[in-house]
Structures are given as structure tokens and as C-alpha cells.
């Protein structure tokens, strides 16, 4: 298309050349005097007409030429011309006339009556630009008609278009013999730029209404007219812009090809079409009756380009939600500021209004205490850890402490004696059976249960173990017929509540036995009286257990010589055993008054609760086992010392008490609501409730076996062997301690395991400080390399991990599964 336009330009230039030949001739004809006269006349005419008159120099020159420099006539002519042609040319801007070089030049050469030539131009002189204009006007009308359905650029339809008449257009042409050149022009010219028609104010001069309107519109939508007209004519800009506007909106997608197409005058709705179609299209448009067909085409093409202004106003909902009105926000903010200035910010270092009132009410006490309480910040700054600790203590009063004076309560209550005893002895000495029989005889186990045990035991061929099953509850224990872990059971006599701690006799389970023995007040050493078994026991666990319980601190021991039925209640055998054992026990450190011997038979039940029915045992006149147990003196406990309790077991008690520990209180007392510290973890916990002997209590004292339900602690901080102690004076974790120990074996600096109750940790003997005299305690030899069994030595023990241990406690040192030493922590 562009090349076509270039071609048309070339044709135009040819035309111009024709006329310019004349002009050139004329100019040559003009003498300098004429020129001077022309110039002066022009000035005069301009003065007469006034500056606002729309006439060009050329017009004035022409008129002057015709009227032979008569200024008056020229002025009247020009005025009349202006009024005559107003109907036509008020559409045409001055620039438009400027750009029509042909007409004036021609009229100048013709007769003076050519003053009407302008008005006849369209018909008489179908020159290029007139044809062009006519075509465009027609086109304009058509388009505006098509866009009439709501297009905002509807103003273009106000242009009074010239009624195009083909008859007039071809008036001077012979029918069907239109000159070739004119044909070409008709075909081509409609595409020619309109050159500043339609109020394009690209050059100076007074704007027509339309021009003003267009200019305004262009200004408004200036940024969207992205025409990149690069052609030489500056009016091209305005033209393309208007063309773009005619196209309803700018198609952005056209941008890539805009460089080519912007130069090319493109018809709205026509798009790029073959040349031959252009005329048809034009003709259709000339008829200015858009058929439905064309309409569809146009609209479908238009549908690609979008209406530009689609930004909507918010609905009431949206305007509330987004607070779209910026003014409201802005006006609100100063108010807030003003409010902030009026309201005085509260100085928190001062006492609050409440404090002022209360201070006035009780002026003495309130103020200092209150001030302290109200100033957590200050407290933190002085002693942060302390403050935090205080806060944590005060903030969780979930369980209220009743603040019971436990000691006073304890004294008030008259209670039965309570005693724990541990049953020790060599494996298969009959400890569990003896205790089972004891419980059965005391009706602590009912007949029915016992029958069941008997049947079951007989079924697996171990009928003699039936009583042992009372205490040995575990399936493994029953299958193997040995006790593995400590079993506890309770029974009561008329005087005392007893707790049995049935210890395992097997040497592999000595640590469990230590754990049980540490809770005992006294011990029952069960000895197998049958031939050979006593002797083997004396070398084995009978000896070790006796030594251990003594080291742990048990002072009283009852030696139950069991299985007397197996030796036919032989008095000789009983006395033999008594002699040997008393000698051994005395050497082990038991006082002879604290050692008693009782013959009995666990399986038959002789001399346990009642005197033996067997006539062979008539020689024995001493007390029965139960009578002997009742003889036990209640041991005294340090009730007023800080709380110490080694945890024997950690378990989930019930839904209400998700975390419970059991054990025996070694020292001090405890009550519900109290805060305790668990060592070695150092975590704090609160006591939610207490159970003493399966009955809920508010308090408990040393010597009692308790179940404590804890809160405010994670179970991971609790394990068996940990120590529950009072929060005020907690037990300390140590890594190294000195101890005075009795050696059971050769002691050198070596790896050992330290046992204290349930607690057992690996460590080593770091140093042997000195060998001590057994009775006086004086140092016999400093820093011995090795210590003989049976001697007392002071050692330094280093531990792998810190454990809670304190001075007056008994520890047992074991190595390779054997007890090597036991002693007292210093």
C-alpha cells in the first residue's frame, strides 16, 4: 500500500510540475515593480481586512493582480469570497488551503470571474484534493453512522458532508470513456491523506469548532494516539491520530507493524484488503447504507479491539471494604493525632490510680510491697534468674498447699508401727515360699487364689512353688522358679503393719536386692537347712546378702532356718547352723543381740504363725517367725530434715494422675501442693496428691512407702533412682566423693559401679587414700596400692556422670557382677 501511495505522490508531483510551469512563467513575467506593488498592496489589504480574516497571501496576491492593485476592490472581493465559500470551506482549515497548490495558481491564469472557482471546484475541477475530500467526507459520514451506536467519537458525524453525486463528478467526461489518468486518480486518491482536513490544527491559524473539539480530544487521549508518523508532512501526525481515533480504539497488537501501517492511511473496519476491493468497499460506503453483512464484518473486527475505559467505580460494598475514599482516611488521621496529644500517656513507674486509692486506705503496709510487686522490670534488672524463679513459683498455684505442719500432725496421730523388712538369702533357700506361706497363714491371700496357684503350679510340675507365686507374679519368674525383681507385699499383725520386700536370691540380680534392701528396716535371712545347701549358700549369696544389708545400714537380722522339715526338725542341724551363722554375722558387724534364729518350714508352714505341729520339733520353745517379726523396734527417722526420696518406680497411675512415682521417703516429710526438685535433672515439680499405703493422704513422713502424683514436669526428667528432694535445700549432684568402705574383695584403683538404692552408675576408684583401723578408725597405712578383703579403706570415687549423693548415705561398690566393697559416704 505504501508503494501505491508513493506512486500517487509521484503523479501529484507531475501535476504540480504542470502548474508550476505556469507559475514559473508568471513569476518570470512579473517585473520587480509589480512585485513591489504586490507586496505593498498585500500589507494594505491585510490592514483593511484585519488580522483575523482567513485569507492567505496568495489569495490577496491574486486579487490584487486581478484588480490591478486596487486595495478597496480586493478587500470587498475577498470578503465576499469568504462569505460565499463559507458553506464549503469552513470545514477546511487554512493549512488545507495552503496545501492545495493547484487551484489558486490556475485561477490566477484564468479569467477574473474565477472568484467562484473555489465554490465550483468540486464539480468543475475534479482536482486531486477535491476528489479526495469528497471521498473522505463520504467515508466519514458512513463511518460515523456505523459508530453511531454509542461511540464517544460521535462528533465526527456533525461534519456536514457534501452530497456526493456521481453525475456531477463525471460531468465533463464522456460516458464510459473516462480518461485513463482520471480513473487512476479515483482509484488511488481515496487513500491519499486528507492533509489537514477536518479541523486538523497542525498548522497555525484560527481553529474551527471541529478543530478545537478534535484538539481537545486529542489532548485528552494524547498518550493513546501512538502513531509514529515519520513522513515528511507534519500534518500527517494529526491525520493518523484522527484515523486511529476513528478506529474506535487503538489496537495494541498492531504496534509491531505500526511503523508501516501508521504511514499507511487505513480505513476503519476495512483493514488490509486487496486493492480491487477498496473501490467496492468505498462504493458501499458512499451509498452510506451499511448492509448487515458489512456490519457484521466490522463488528467482528471491532470486537478484537477493546473499549478503553473499563475501569469501574466501586460498589457500596467495595467502597466500604477497601475504604476507597482516601479523603476519609486522611481526614481521620489528624483526629487521631489530636486525640493522642490530649490523652496523656500513662507513666508506668508511677503508682496506678488503684494503687493511690489503696495506699490511702492502708498507708502503712501497702506501698512498699505493692511497688515491688508492680515492678517486674526492676526485679528482673537486679536479679533476673531470681525474679524468674519467683514468678514461676507464684504463677502456678494449680494445687494449693494446705501448709500443714506435718510434724505436729504426725505426733497427733497414734498409729500402728510400720516396718519394712527385706527377705534375703541364697537362691532356692525358700524365701518366696516362706513369705507366701506367711501371707497365706495371715489371711493376706485368700484360699481361692492359693488353690488356683497350686493347680497351676502342679500343672507345670512345680507344685512346691505354689506359695512362691504369691510374690513372684511375673511369668518369667514363675517359669524359671526364681525371683528376679523385688516383690512387695503387705500384711499386718496386731501390732505392726509390715511391708515385705522379697529380694531375689540369684547372684545375677544382686542390684535388685540392693534396691530392696535399701528400703528395709531389718532383714530376714532365710537359710536352707538341708544338707549341702546351707554350705553352698554360705559361700554364695547368704554371705554376700548379709554383708550387703549390713553395709546398707540394716542392723537387725532374723535368721530363718528354713526347710527344717527336710532335716526332720533336727535340733543338731539347727544349732550347727546357728553357730556358724552367728560367728559370721558377728564378723560382718552385726551385734549378737540383734541376731535371732528361728527354725521354720515354709512348705509345711511350721513355726511361722503357729508352733510346729510336727512332734519332732517339740524341742523348740522359742518364738515363731511372726512373733519374732513383731519384736522389731520401730526405727527412727529424721523427720525434720529436708525431704529425700529415691524414686523406686515411675508409672502412669491413672487418668487423673498421669505421672506417679513410688518409693520410700528416706528423710523429711512431704505434703500435697509442695514443690519438689527432681535430681539429677534439677527439674521442679509439684505434688498433686499423695498415697500412703494405697490410701490418699495429705502428707507423708520419712519411713513411709508412698506414691506421689506429680504435675508440672515432663516425664523425661524422671527415672528410677532419681531423688525427689525439697526445693529449699535440694540434694547436690556430685561427680566425685570420698567414702569409707569395707572391702569384700581386693581393691585397687579400678572401674566399679556405684549402687545406692535403685541408683547405680558406673565410675571408678580413683585413689586409695588410706587403710583404716576397723575399730578406732585411725590410718594404718597411707596410699596403699592394694587392699585385702575385709579391711576398711578410705577411697575417692569418680563418677562418669553427676548423681545426687550426699554425706551420710551408704553406697555399695560392685565390679564384674560381684560386690567388692560397701561403705559410708563422707
Amino acid at each position: 500500500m505504501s508503494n501505491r501511495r508513493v506512486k500517487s505522490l509521484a503523479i501529484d508531483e507531475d501535476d504540480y510540475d504542470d502548474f508550476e510551469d505556469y507559475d514559473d512563467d508568471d513569476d518570470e513575467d512579473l517585473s520587480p515593480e509589480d512585485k513591489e506593488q504586490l507586496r505593498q498592496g498585500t500589507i494594505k489589504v491585510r490592514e483593511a481586512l484585519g488580522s483575523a480574516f482567513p485569507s492567505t497571501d496568495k489569495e490577496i496576491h491574486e486579487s490584487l493582480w486581478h484588480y490591478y492593485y486596487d486595495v478597496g476592490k480586493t478587500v470587498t472581493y475577498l470578503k465576499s469570497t469568504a462569505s460565499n465559500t463559507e458553506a464549503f470551506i469552513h470545514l477546511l482549515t487554512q493549512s488545507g488551503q495552503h496545501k492545495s497548490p493547484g487551484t489558486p495558481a490556475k485561477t490566477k491564469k484564468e479569467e477574473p470571474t474565477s472568484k467562484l472557482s473555489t465554490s465550483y471546484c468540486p464539480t468543475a475541477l475534479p482536482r486531486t484534493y477535491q476528489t479526495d475530500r469528497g471521498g473522505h467526507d463520504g467515508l466519514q459520514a458512513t463511518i460515523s453512522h456505523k459508530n453511531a451506536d454509542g461511540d464517544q467519537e460521535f462528533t465526527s458525524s456533525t461534519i456536514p458532508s457534501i452530497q456526493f453525486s456521481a453525475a456531477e463528478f463525471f460531468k465533463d467526461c464522456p460516458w464510459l470513456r473516462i480518461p485513463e489518468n482520471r480513473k487512476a486518480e479515483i482509484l488511488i486518491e481515496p487513500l491519499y491523506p486528507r492533509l489537514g482536513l477536518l479541523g486538523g490544527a497542525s498548522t497555525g491559524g484560527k481553529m474551527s469548532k471541529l478543530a478545537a473539539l478534535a484538539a481537545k480530544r486529542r489532548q485528552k487521549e494524547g498518550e493513546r494516539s501512538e502513531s509514529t508518523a515519520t513522513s515528511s508532512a507534519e500534518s500527517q501526525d494529526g491525520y493518523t491520530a484522527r484515523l486511529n481515533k476513528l478506529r474506535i480504539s487503538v489496537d495494541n497488537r498492531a504496534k509491531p507493524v505500526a511503523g508501516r501501517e501508521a504511514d499507511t492511511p487505513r480505513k476503519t473496519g476495512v483493514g488490509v484488503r486487496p486493492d480491487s476491493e477498496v473501490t467496492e468497499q468505498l462504493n458501499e460506503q458512499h451509498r452510506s447504507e451499511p448492509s448487515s453483512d458489512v456490519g457484521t464484518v466490522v463488528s467482528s473486527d471491532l470486537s478484537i479491539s477493546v473499549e478503553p475505559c473499563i475501569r469501574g467505580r466501586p460498589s457500596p460494598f467495595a467502597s466500604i471494604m477497601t475504604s476507597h475514599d482516601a479523603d476519609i482516611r486522611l481526614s481521620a488521621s489528624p483526629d487521631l493525632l489530636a486525640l493522642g496529644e490530649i490523652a496523656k500517656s500513662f507513666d508506668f513507674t508511677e503508682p496506678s490510680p488503684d494503687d493511690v486509692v489503696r495506699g490511702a486506705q492502708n498507708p502503712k503496709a501497702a506501698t512498699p510491697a505493692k511497688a515491688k510487686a508492680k515492678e517486674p522490670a526492676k526485679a528482673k534488672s537486679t536479679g533476673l534468674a531470681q525474679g524468674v524463679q519467683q514468678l514461676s513459683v507464684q504463677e502456678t498455684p494449680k494445687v494449693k498447699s494446705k501448709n500443714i505442719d506435718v510434724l505436729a500432725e504426725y505426733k497427733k496421730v497414734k498409729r500402728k508401727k510400720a516396718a519394712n523388712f527385706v527377705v534375703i538369702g541364697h537362691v532356692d533357700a525358700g524365701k518366696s515360699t516362706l513369705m507366701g506361706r506367711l501371707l497365706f497363714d495371715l489371711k493376706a491371700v485368700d484360699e481361692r487364689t492359693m488353690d488356683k496357684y497350686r493347680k497351676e503350679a502342679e500343672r507345670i510340675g512345680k507344685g512346691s512353688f505354689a506359695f512362691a507365686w504369691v510374690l513372684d507374679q511375673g511369668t518369667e519368674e514363675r517359669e524359671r522358679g526364681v525371683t528376679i525383681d523385688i516383690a512387695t507385699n503387705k500384711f499386718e499383725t496386731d501390732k505392726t503393719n509390715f511391708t515385705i520386700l522379697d529380694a531375689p536370691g540369684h547372684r545375677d540380680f544382686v542390684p535388685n536386692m540392693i534396691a530392696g534392701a535399701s528400703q528395709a528396716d531389718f532383714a530376714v535371712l532365710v537359710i536352707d537347712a538341708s544338707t549341702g545347701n546351707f554350705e553352698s549358700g554360705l559361700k554364695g549369696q547368704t554371705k554376700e546378702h548379709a554383708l550387703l544389708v549390713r553395709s546398707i545400714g540394716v542392723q537387725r537380722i532374723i535368721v530363718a532356718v528354713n526347710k527344717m522339715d527336710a532335716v526332720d526338725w533336727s535340733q543338731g542341724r539347727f544349732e550347727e547352723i546357728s553357730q556358724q551363722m552367728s560367728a559370721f554375722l558377728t564378723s560382718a558387724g552385726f551385734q549378737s543381740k540383734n541376731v535371732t534364729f528361728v527354725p521354720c518350714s515354709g512348705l509345711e508352714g511350721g513355726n511361722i504363725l503357729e508352733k510346729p505341729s510336727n512332734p519332732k520339733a517339740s524341742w523348740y520353745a522359742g518364738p515363731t517367725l511372726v512373733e519374732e517379726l513383731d519384736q522389731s523396734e520401730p526405727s527412727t527417722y529424721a523427720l525434720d530434715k529436708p525431704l529425700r526420696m529415691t524414686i523406686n518406680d515411675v508409672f502412669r497411675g491413672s487418668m487423673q494422675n498421669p505421672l506417679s512415682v513410688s518409693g520410700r521417703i528416706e528423710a523429711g516429710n512431704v505434703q500435697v501442693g509442695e514443690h519438689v526438685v527432681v535430681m539429677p535433672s534439677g527439674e521442679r515439680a509439684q505434688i498433686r496428691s499423695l498415697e500412703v499405703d494405697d490410701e490418699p493422704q495429705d502428707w507423708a513422713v520419712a519411713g513411709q512407702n508412698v506414691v506421689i502424683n506429680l504435675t508440672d514436669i515432663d516425664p523425661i526428667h524422671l527415672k528410677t533412682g532419681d531423688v525427689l528432694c525439697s526445693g529449699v535445700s535440694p540434694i547436690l549432684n556430685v561427680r566425685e566423693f570420698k567414702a569409707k568402705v569395707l572391702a569384700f574383695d581386693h581393691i585397687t584403683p579400678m572401674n566399679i559401679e556405684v549402687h545406692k538404692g535403685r541408683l547405680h552408675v558406673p565410675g571408678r576408684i580413683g585413689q586409695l587414700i588410706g587403710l583404716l583401723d576397723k575399730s578406732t578408725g585411725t590410718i594404718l597405712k597411707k596410699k596403699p596400692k592394694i587392699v585385702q578383703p575385709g579391711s576398711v579403706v578410705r577411697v575417692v570415687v569418680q563418677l562418669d556422670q553427676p548423681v545426687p549423693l550426699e554425706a551420710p548415705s551408704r553406697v555399695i561398690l560392685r565390679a564384674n557382677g560381684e560386690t567388692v566393697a560397701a561403705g559410708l559416704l563422707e
Partner: protein
Amino acid sequence: MSDRRRLNGPAGTTSPPVFALSKSSTKSSQKRTRKPNELRKIFLQTGVVPSATGSAYLELESPPESKPGLLNTSSTLKLSCSVHGPKPLPRTASFSPNLQLSASVKFAPFATCVRQGYIRDSTERDIGMHLETALKGVVIPDRWPKSAIEIAVTVLEGEDDQVDGDRIGGVGLFNLLAGCINVSMAALADARVDCLDLLAAGVGAVVPGPGKPFRVLDPASIEHDLILASCLVGYLPSRDEIVEIWSNGSVSNLGRDEDIGFDGLVDSAVAAARGSQTVIKEVLIESLTRTEVGAEKLPNDGMNDVDMNT
């Protein structure tokens, strides 16, 4: 006296009430008054949710007259979108060198004529997936390794498809998704998430005309009795790329007119997207200038606020 432990129903049978439609509501189908190439007016605002990283609210222009009838069908759309992130991936998640984008669309219970619960249904999941696909095409994910971004669109009012106010589907769904994409893009831009371009979505359709079918932009389902084909595109205008396309219906057998093929349909959707993008762009520029103004004002206010007696 048979069963007194339970609340029994009535002994006889009952029939539920049936409401007759009133005259006004039966023929409430509005005809399209817009021109084929005219989009509905879009209102968009960013920064509406203060707690989100970025947020936007979009609504389509409501029809000027809405007769309060028994069955009130509307062709409007109200969407709110919030962007949370980019935030670090949870520790349990596996390593990802890219930004993990997840988008979800949720209907408010009152969004449609038929109330619905809070259970995520297939429509929401479907739109959410399309939205996610579209947005994944525009964000530059490798700017944020090991992070995630969540885009949540809440439909406050959805377009009702039919007069009887059934669930959303068809063109209503397209318009909804287009709105979701537009509002999400605005929110993403508001969150300052790096993107390739300003994504915009638009819907075009072919409707039967008086003579032959013609194309319309942004068709509202209640304005047209029949829609022959519709198409949604998510479009990056400055790159001339389509990141999401979803079309419905058939254009191949529409007749002899070669102008409207599938390409023509897509072209119309693209044009609609271009139109929407102008709004998004305008709004974002506006919000930017507003925040700049706000930022200039802020220091003074801040000085006053911070001045506390300590």
C-alpha cells in the same frame, strides 16, 4: 404409644411447599446492552488485607438496575485475594530450589444463590488448579529458593450461571477464573513478587447473532441465551504469550464464515485480557503513587507515635 424414646415424625405424609415464580423473576434475563467489544467495568484495589503480604479486591460492575425478585440473579463478581509469603518452607518439606507456589480458590457460603458449606468442592479445586497453572507461568520462581507462597482467592460473590441460580459452570466459571487470575496478579504485584509480566486474563465468546454468529468480549452468561463457544486465556501482553487457555464449545462448525475460527476466538479472549490489563496497570501505578505519598507522610507520624515516656 409405640416408641417414646425418639422424636418421631408425623404419622401422615407431608408435602414440601412449592413456591411459584413471580412474573418479574421469571423473565429477568437481561439482554446485553454493552457493545460486543465492551468489557464490564472492573473495579480493582490493592492492599485491602493488612496482614497479608499482598492483597487485592476485584469486582465487576453490577448491572445498573437489579430488581429485587425471588430469584435474584446477578452477573457480578466480587473477589478478594491475599498473598502470603514468600516464606520459608516448613522444616519437614524436602528441599526445593524454586518458589513453591500454591493457589486456592474458596467460595464464601453466600457467594452463590444456593448456599454451600465450607467443604472444598470440585469446582473450587478445578479453578484453583487453573489459577495455579496460570500464576506459575508468570512468577520467576528461582528468585526464592526454599520458600513457599500461598495465594488464596475468596469468592465473595460469584456469577450465577442460570436463572435458577445453579452452581457455577460454563461461561460463569470462565469469568470467575479470569477474575481470579486478574486479582491474583494484582495481589502478587502488591506483594512485590518478581514476575515476568503483568498477567491478565480475559474471556471471549461466540454467540449466535441476527445473521450469523459473532464474537463478544467478556460475555455474561445471563445476558446471552446461547453461547456457541467460549474461551479463556491468561495472557502476558508484553511478551505476547499465553500461559493459560481453556475453551469450551465448538467453533469449527459454525458455518462458512472463516473469520471466526478458533484463532478468532482466542484473539477475542486475548483482546479482553488486554483490556483487563489496562485496569490492573492503572490501579497498580495508582497504588504505588499512593504508597509513596504515604511513605513520605509516615516519618512525621512515626516521630509522634514513638515518643513514649519510658
